[in-house]
């Protein structure tokens, strides 16, 4: 168990190093540079700009910059934002919980509802209900992600005005609310982005869970359960679904990178001030340290999520516990 965890952690750190290196290379290969906006600003002379670049170490050879960066990261120093003039660590510490709130809510709801819907379908496979829900989940999976987000935004935000169109809090009044009021305010702003992300997750989880359960229902042990008098509902819920959850746990681990990508999209659509939003801003500004910091934290989230999925698998599948 300890050896397993250590192996997984080492693998995760290696992954993060690769991600950091690749991001570094991509950033410097891509066109554009930091402080580009200063060129158009008449208050800055080219000399001042050059000074800024030099101060940020951008004029050193790339290998030097790379080694310096990696060295800093290892020491726990993520650098300072070029655009925001704040330590990257402080920025991330502010943004990460917001992203985790959005992703966590959507993951929980998306997987719970997806599993329930997929199981419901598989239990009556081929029926009209299964077919209609199937069409719906296929359609949800087929339309582009941003379309779902925009449709929700336009319908429930702009047209019906049921929910706020963006942000995480009411800009002016939030600070004057009671604690319960502030929590309610955040929850209120969370509804649309969380729903959008939940729908994306739910669609593929439901399709996957339906298929996994349909694979399990013909198993001999399901027939054994029926032969010993287990009720039809419990045959599905207790015996078949429990075994058919194992591939879903694997799916959870594997889908995390895509989910992080989905979260970036949802955050920028709904101006949710989390890490995804920060990533988009800082890529536009060529704010190298922030982009690198966001990427590192995102890959850490994926690595930790993967380890959690493995631990869950160890709990859920007795066959993986010894061997």
């Amino acid at each position, binding site marked *: 168990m300890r050896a397993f965890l250590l192996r997984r952690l080492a693998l995760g750190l290696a992954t993060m190093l690769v991600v950091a290196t690749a991001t570094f290379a991509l950033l410097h290969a891509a066109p554009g540079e930091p402080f580009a906006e200063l060129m158009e600003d008449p208050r800055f002379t080219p000399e001042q700009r050059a000074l800024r670049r030099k101060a940020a170490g951008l004029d050193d050879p790339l290998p030097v910059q790379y080694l310096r960066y990696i060295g800093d990261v290892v020491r726990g120093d993520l650098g300072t934002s070029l655009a925001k003039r704040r330590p990257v660590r402080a920025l991330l510490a502010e943004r990460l919980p917001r992203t985790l709130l959005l992703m966590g809510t959507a993951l929980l709801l998306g997987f719970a509802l997806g599993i329930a819907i997929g199981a419901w379908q598989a239990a009556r496979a081929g029926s009209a209900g299964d077919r209609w829900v199937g069409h719906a989940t296929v359609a949800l999976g087929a339309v582009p992600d941003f379309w779902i987000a925009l449709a929700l935004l336009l319908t429930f935000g702009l047209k019906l005005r049921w929910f706020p169109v963006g942000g995480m809090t009411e800009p002016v009044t939030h600070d004057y609310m009671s604690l319960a009021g502030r929590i309610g305010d955040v929850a209120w702003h969370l509804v649309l982005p969380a729903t959008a992300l939940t729908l994306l997750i739910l669609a593929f989880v439901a399709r996957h869970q339906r298929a996994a359960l349909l694979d399990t229902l013909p*198993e*001999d*042990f399901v*027939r*054994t*359960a*029926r*032969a*010993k*008098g*287990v*009720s*039809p509902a419990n045959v599905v819920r207790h*015996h078949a679904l*429990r*075994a058919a959850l*194992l591939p879903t746990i694997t799916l959870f681990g594997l889908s995390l990178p895509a989910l992080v990508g989905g979260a970036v999209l949802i955050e920028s659509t709904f101006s949710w001030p989390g890490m995804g939003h920060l990533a988009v801003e800082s890529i536009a500004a060529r704010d190298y340290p922030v982009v690198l910091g966001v990427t590192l934290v995102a890959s850490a989230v994926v690595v930790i999520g993967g380890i959690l999925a493995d631990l869950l698998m160890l709990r*859920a*599948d*007795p*066959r993986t516990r*010894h061997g």
Partner: protein
Amino acid sequence: MSTPDSARVLLSVENLRTWFHTRDGVARAVDGVSFDVRAGETLCVVGESGSGKSVTALSLLRLIDPPGRIEPGSRIAFEGRDLMTATEEEVRRLRGNRIAMVFQEPMSALNPVFTVGDQVAEVARIHDGASRRAAWDRAVEMLSLVGIPDPAARARQYPHEMSGGMRQRVLIAMALVMNPALLIADEPTTALDVTIQAQILELLTSVQERFGTAIILITHDLGVVAEAADRVLVMYGGQVVERAAVRDLFASPQHPYTQGLLRAMPRVGQGRDRLLTIPGTVPPPTAWPSGCRFRDRCPLAFDRCEREAPELTNVVASHAARCHVAGTPLPAAAASS
């Protein structure tokens, strides 16, 4: 294991027809099967793979799923109750309770994610409403009864931690929890080593002696039949082709198919796949031959066999065969290959 003829009839099956309505046509997997099981006896059902034994067994518990269907006109009566008109819920309450079933595949018939103790205990919880605690104690007791050493510790194990023979014992323990009147065992030893096979058969025999359980023992091994049966059904092509007391069957087999099986029968200790030495194979159930279903493999076939399907008729009292020339011995070389 002897039963007086006057013994109470526990299960009575009449004209059971279970057909699968598939894309490729109607598979008449079980097509007009009739037999009785008496309290406390062992009825062996023997026949090559594909002759309809398992489908017959599953039909008795109404465990046939679409596209399969037990056709109207089939009759299954158990302890005087008509199972064909019983509701799904009534049949469910019989399953694992009055009628229990043990399957062939001990490796896959247990749920991999629950302990064997939980799986045995579940039966008591379903049918007895036993508490978690009481059901668990009962499970441990049952595991001990079927000869599993250190049952309290074994109950906490998962199926993958056990050998095939141990798992088959667990399945038998699960079947015996409610002390069923009828135990259906579908090739319970086929997947096991020869020595383990003998142990499992012994276990079934001792269970029967102790609790008076009637057993339907499905096998394709005549060695098992000789050892365990009181009476025998020989199945071919979804039908019963011969029905007799075990002594009579071995002493004077009436149907050419049975005679072929007996000639091909291995001596004790030899492989169990020797049944395959009857030339030819069972035709697919979507296309039984016209007339007698055995005729394309029968060394005695003649023109009437193609025109006219033989009925299952008594040759002597309580010894029936489905053949126009029942009792005619096979030519000497016919059944060896």
